[in-house]
């Protein structure tokens, strides 16, 4: 019983970190894109991108994201864990309003509410995996 509780809290921490990293990736990406000079050639975009430190940070975030994600999947169903990460739509929107001074109209707020409701639905029921090596009868 207590080991299940421990697994559940680890899972919650893993999901929180995943969402945090996803949010960080989106914001760093936008920040890096804003620092690019106007370019037309795809090759130029790639070349300039490789010299922009924020893109290197982005690459590191992606690697870290994969490591954490594999940890999450050790304990949770994919059909449970992945929809929960949709929470990053909400965090990215919130921080875009704060940092990039983007605006949220009523339609977007309804969209965010639907996403939150969807995540709430997914989070009902068992969080732990029902398939593969860890499956219990």
């Amino acid at each position, binding site marked *: 019983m207590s080991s299940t509780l421990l697994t559940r809290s680890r899972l919650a921490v893993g999901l929180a970190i995943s969402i945090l990293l996803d949010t960080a990736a989106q914001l760093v990406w936008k920040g890096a894109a804003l620092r690019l000079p106007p370019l037309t050639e795809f090759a130029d975009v790639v070349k300039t991108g490789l010299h922009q430190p924020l893109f290197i940070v982005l690459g590191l975030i992606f690697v870290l994201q994969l490591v954490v994600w594999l940890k999450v*999947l050790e304990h949770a*169903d994919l*059909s449970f864990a992945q929809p929960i990460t949709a929470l990053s*739509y909400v965090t990215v929107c919130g921080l875009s309003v704060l940092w990039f001074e983007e605006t949220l109209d009523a339609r977007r707020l309804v969209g965010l509410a639907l*996403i939150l409701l969807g995540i709430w639905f997914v989070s009902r029921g068992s969080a732990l995996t029902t*398939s*593969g090596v860890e499956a219990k009868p």
Partner: protein
Amino acid sequence: MSSSTTGLTLLVLCAWIEGASQICFKQAVHCPQRKALWVGIGSVVHLVEAVLYTAVLALIDLSIAYPLSGLVFVTTMCLSAWILREVVTPTRWIGAMLILAGAGLLASAA
């Protein structure tokens, strides 16, 4: 086929490919002895999806492509049920549909 029809078809394909990469990552934790292989395949599949998605953006507007980003939650859930044999409860399906609708509203152009 017009370029927008091609674009939309490829976009839906992208959602399925991204779902497939998630299946690979889940397989990686299921069979530890082949972990590196599955992580490798999953990463390559994900990269292919990214390249294809970039090509799709050349065919259709971001204002159409971005609202459909929620599709991946539905395709991954389908593949989880079908390939991984996860028990996907009705509440999970409803949740995925709500996220799809919400992402559609959030990302669509006014």
